């Protein structure tokens, strides 16, 4: 018992120390890969770190004092979400913390009067509407899969989900697909980069982050890195079990998924929010719903 507690504390601390760096590096790799896919050389893989360093060294033009507090709260809540996840507590609590954090991004955007910012906030809420059902189904799926493998004793505890006899993906292929789908929304990648985009030259300028600058924008970016690490952690959780080989399997899965996201980002154009909601819910019902039904009635 004590051993697992120490392990949980170590992984949570590692997340705080390295979670941001890991995704920052992945973001750099993402830009490099994207450039190569387009036949360009692309920036250095450390480019995201240069960008963040610059943002913190620049003047911060804040419209109100609230912006700093809100951006800071967003960062802290996202980090808290990841810490809860990597500490192996209840997955429902983790997803709840994630939703709370997401609201702060919306607050940050609505704290300014800019039309772009406000519209970005509305679209961000549409995104939440689109992905939230799948997030809940994922939690339920993990519970049921754990139950099947443990003679009917299900669990929402991440510790238990990750230490079954077999990886959860064996029972949750549909839910995994559904989760991959909403991951594109969560990563704010094309075709679902509707609330903000990595490239601001668009109809919405920069959406939710239009009116943030300098240090405040830097904090939001760092928060996104932590968020991405956490989300990739959830992807990894699908592959973890109590065998040693599941760890390299999870790492490979995470990298493959990230590559896939970059690829999809490159080959697709942004859709309208109506289509996003329809698609996301469609996939949720078909992949997630069917998977749950199968778990309920067949196993």
């Amino acid at each position: 018992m004590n051993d697992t507690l120490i392990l949980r504390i170590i992984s949570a601390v590692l997340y705080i120390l390295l979670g941001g760096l890991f995704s920052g590096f992945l973001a750099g790799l993402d830009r490099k890969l994207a450039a190569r896919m387009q036949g360009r050389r692309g920036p250095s893989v450390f480019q995201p770190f240069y960008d963040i360093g610059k943002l913190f060294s620049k003047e911060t033009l804040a419209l109100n004092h609230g912006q700093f507090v809100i951006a800071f709260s967003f960062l802290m809540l996202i980090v808290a979400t990841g810490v809860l996840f990597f500490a192996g507590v209840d997955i429902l609590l983790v997803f709840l913390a994630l939703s709370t954090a997401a609201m702060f991004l919306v607050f940050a955007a609505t704290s300014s009067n800019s039309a772009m910012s406000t519209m970005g906030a509305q679209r961000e809420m549409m995104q939440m509407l689109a992905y939230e059902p799948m997030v809940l189904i994922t939690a339920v799926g993990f519970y049921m899969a754990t139950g099947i493998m443990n003679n009917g004793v299900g669990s929402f505890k991440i510790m238990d989900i990750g230490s079954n006899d077999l990886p959860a993906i064996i029972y949750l292929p549909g839910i995994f697909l559904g989760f991959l789908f909403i991951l594109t929304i969560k990563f704010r990648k094309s075709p679902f980069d509707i609330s903000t985009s990595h490239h601001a030259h668009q109809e919405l300028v920069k959406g939710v982050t239009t009116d943030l600058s300098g240090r405040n924008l830097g904090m939001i970016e760092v928060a996104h890195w932590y968020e991405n690490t956490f989300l990739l952690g959830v992807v990894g959780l699908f592959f973890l079990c109590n065998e040693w080989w599941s760890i390299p399997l999870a790492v490979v899965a995470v990298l493959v998924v990230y590559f896939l996201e970059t690829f999809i980002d490159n080959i697709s154009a942004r859709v309208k929010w109506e289509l996003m909601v329809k698609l996301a819910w469609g996939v949720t019902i078909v992949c997630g719903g069917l998977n749950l039904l199968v778990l309920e009635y067949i196993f």
Partner: protein
Amino acid sequence: MAKITKSPWLLHYDGSSCNGCDIEVLACLTPVYDVERFGIINTGNPKHADIFLVTGGINEKNKAVVKQLYDQMPEPKVVVAVGICACNGGVFKDAYNIIGGVDKAIPVDVYVPGCAARPEAIIDGVVKALGVLDEKQKAFKAAKKQKGENK
């Protein structure tokens, strides 16, 4: 400390250009010239920008717009005037509505002549602007430190 020159984000504004220079500015982003390899991003958002790239001259209508965009950019920042129109009005100089180059509205740091300015020239201009930006960042930091000591 982070070097601003490693991550210059730019804002492109079309004053009263004929669009010739704008095409060349966009050409810089294509795979042939790929300015993103220097970390340059075309932001389209003054609040995120470090470099203000203006094409075309200043007229009565856009003078206030250019000034406002400039004011919305956080320090340190530099301005690059691309094309002869942006430098001094160019072929439109004598038109009744044209006031002149970009420096009639805001302080310009680098002038890139040419009609249209070639992508190579624009990239050279931006690289030159990075040197200015570096100086400005040092001055900005020194001023910030000074302010901190006076408090």
